[in-house]
């Protein structure tokens, strides 16, 4: 029997509960401070109740590990309530002064912590993996030899990374500045002008364009994945007459600049070249025809359908699919599977990196597009994307750079989030499809 005293390492769930308790305490302290330091502010019931509820959830979860999952969900819900509350205050007032600003954001951070505590619960397991209990009890310090060349290499890489990040950091910094600070070319704002974000969102009607862009991107991705996966599978796994020639022709289309196909595409979606389905008709009564009545202008279809057939996506997926061993197909055949079942049950699950890569690239392309949406939409209220909203801050003779940068950051935020969520599989996808440089 090992009598060695084991150090206390909280379990995954306990760690999350401790985090919940920490956030709740921080929320209580900051709300108390705001109450005491600002005349006429009064005690905010919403926040106090949120903090106390968070504290109770945390304590219950910590002492009753079997309830931890449920208390964690409860903490996330009240955290979300707190976030919405702070967003409301921000939208209504958008003005805070001095120390109150700090307290406000600290409290907002704490409520975000309550909402996000479900994510932090993984940390202890990583500690366990990298350092065993035995190592800790013996007081053994785990060291890794660091060579001089590594130091030089990492220094250079850090420096280059910093240079690469500069425009991005400048954008974030400028988005929090006053117009005066942008004119005087300061690097760091003296006080964070968080209202720039609210003003940018409000001025550019981002609520409309953001939703539009999201719907357009998701529709495009859904259609593109269906088309690309089926086509790529056919090119990779099915032998048919002319497959090589077809694939070569497909690859050749990659060389054609988008600008060249712009007018032909326009003619097609406008019903000028061949009959197209009428967008208002309902399946299965789809009506085909040509001319103005069948035009797709100002519809979701015109912004998504033309991008559902992507040669690059088919190529990328095909490269991944061809690496899947033929023996798997043979085994599936023995078990009675056809191509569709093999694709769905075998190929797709193991092709997650490639599919996520295609998804991410399509999302970025769709989210960033402006030329085509401007061409095929006439009503600014209908289906204009978020990139169009950015134009609100510039005109022919000048620009409001601080608002433009706030708008730009809002615009790229979904892409950043998606990238961070899929970063590992994205890299894997690129590395395993022969596309790396």
């Amino acid at each position: 029997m090992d009598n060695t005293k084991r150090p206390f390492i909280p379990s995954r769930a306990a760690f999350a509960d401790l985090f919940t308790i920490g956030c709740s305490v921080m929320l209580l302290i900051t709300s108390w401070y705001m109450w005491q330091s600002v005349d006429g502010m009064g005690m905010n019931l919403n926040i106090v109740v949120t903090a106390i509820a968070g504290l109770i959830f945390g304590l219950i979860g910590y002492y009753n590990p079997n309830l931890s999952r449920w208390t964690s969900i409860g903490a996330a819900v009240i955290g979300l309530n707190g976030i919405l509350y702070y967003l409301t205050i921000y939208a209504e007032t958008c003005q805070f002064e001095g120390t109150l600003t700090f307290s406000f954001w600290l409290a907002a951070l704490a409520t975000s912590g309550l909402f996000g505590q479900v994510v932090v619960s993984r940390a202890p397991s990583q500690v366990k993996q990298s350092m065993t209990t035995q190592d800790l009890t013996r007081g053994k310090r785990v060291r890794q030899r660091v060579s001089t060349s590594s130091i030089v290499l990492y220094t250079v890489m850090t420096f280059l990374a910093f240079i690469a990040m500069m425009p991005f950091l400048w954008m974030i910094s400028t988005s929090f500045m006053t117009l005066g600070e942008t004119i005087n070319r300061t690097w760091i704002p003296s006080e964070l002008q968080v209202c720039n974000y609210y003003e940018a969102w409000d001025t550019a009607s981002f609520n409309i364009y953001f939703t539009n862009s999201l719907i357009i991107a998701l529709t495009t991705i859904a259609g593109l994945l269906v088309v690309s996966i089926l086509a790529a599978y056919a090119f990779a796994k099915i032998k048919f007459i002319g497959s090589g020639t077809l694939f070569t022709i497909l690859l050749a289309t990659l060389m054609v600049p988008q600008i060249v196909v712009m007018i032909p595409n326009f003619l097609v979606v406008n019903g000028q070249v061949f009959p197209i389905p009428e967008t208002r008709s309902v399946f299965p009564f789809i009506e085909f025809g040509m001319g103005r009545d069948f035009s797709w202008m100002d519809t979701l279809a015109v912004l998504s359908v033309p991008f559902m057939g992507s040669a690059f996506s088919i190529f990328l997926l095909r490269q991944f699919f061809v690496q899947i061993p033929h023996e798997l197909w043979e085994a599936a055949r023995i078990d009675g599977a056809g191509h569709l079942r093999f694709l769905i049950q075998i190929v797709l699950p193991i092709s997650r990196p490639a599919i996520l890569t295609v998804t991410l690239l399509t999302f970025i392309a769709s989210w960033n597009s402006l030329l085509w949406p401007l061409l095929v939409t006439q009503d600014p209220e209908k289906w204009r994307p978020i990139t169009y909203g950015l134009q609100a801050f510039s005109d022919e003779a000048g620009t409001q750079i601080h608002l433009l940068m706030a708008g730009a950051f809002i615009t790229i935020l979904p892409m950043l989030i998606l990238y961070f969520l899929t970063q590992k599989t994205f890299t894997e996808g690129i590395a395993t499809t022969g596309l790396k440089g």
Partner: protein
Amino acid sequence: MKKLSVLLMLLLAVAVFALPIFAQSEDRDYDSIAPEDLNGVVVTFWHQHTGTREEQLMEIVNEFNETNEYGIIVEASNQGGYGDIFQKITTALAAGGGDLPSLVVAYQNQAATYEVVDGLIDINPLLNSPVWGIPEEEQADFFESFFNADVFPTFDNERLGFPPNRSMEVMYYNIDWLNELYEAGAISFQGPPTTPEQFYEAACAAVENPFSGATGENAPTGYQLSADASRFAAWTFAHGGDIFDYEAGQYSLNSEAAVEAMTFLKSLFDAGCATEVFERFGDQTNFGAGTTLFTVGSSSGMPFYRSAVEEGAGFEWSVAAIPHTTEEPVQNIYGASVSIPVTTPEEELAAWLFVKYYTSPEVQARWAQASNYFPVRASAAESLTEYFEAEPAYATAFELLQYGRSEPPVPGYDPVREEMAAVMMAIVTGEDDRDIEEILTELNEFANEELELASMGME
């Protein structure tokens, strides 16, 4: 980017010429249209305005919709910038003209491109119509240079647009800094420079004598050039020349005046008295921070300069004519007009009636104040007395309108503009160190080839 733009132009041109489904330009008899036929006619108006300009324009549109006796409904909408609108119109023309708006903002050269395929109507019959037009005595109220800018000799003197506003290239200068330079004996004249020599003297003196009130940390500079075709034209005009030979119907980008203008600008750069602009509107920013003495830009940018100075170094500033070698200033005046694409006679007439309202003196006065553009009618200017007092820089610029000259209203000018800006930058920075005349001759050849290409198909 430049190559892409040229490629796009070529593709659009080819597409426009290749497709047989063009809009039909016919002789319209607008006088026979009964007023009740206009009831419920929808006029779609594509423009590029954003912010306060768009708000004011929407007010004008709503007012027209509520008050016009015919029941016309104008639907104005922003369709991106000038380039975006140009692209949309050329693409719509290529697709047979079915998606054309009833009214569109267009520079003269863009209107000329549309008219290559008879995409626009001639506004003259409407303007001179005894029923729907503007009486001759009222026509005289329009500033002549603005009024005639949309008459195209290359298209049998058709009027392909109508001006609702205009802007002008002006020199912005820091009054306080110039005074400091004069008091320090660094320059020999008072007030804004009127000749290139004085401009050179002050610009170079500024580098050695930074402005005492500067808030920016950039090194002081005399002049920041944001390379652009309008700047190319403005400096050429100020040197007594033009960029287009109207008699020969050809560009004259290698004229003596153009060579002199580019040589002058290069000398400023060589002496370290001028720098290029690295970011869009960076010259405005540096001007506001008190680190740039002169900039040259559109008069419509005054509100942005005002904010930049107020939020920046907070000094006295104004605008003046581009320093010139001619006896009187020669100012580059430009501005997009509104054109009426070929649709139906009722829609065309309805669009015209809105244009007529838009350019009426009272509406013009409001539009000028809200947009900071210049009004196109003298009577509108008369009611701006209070605005002139409140905005002395605007009043100064307004006085310069009498010296106006325009850039060529020819098809295919857009890719030429991009090339002009690129060549201008290559010359002043020394990136292209060949003889300036040789570089400009090459540019001129390119421009004339573009003109020839864009004019293909014209009768």
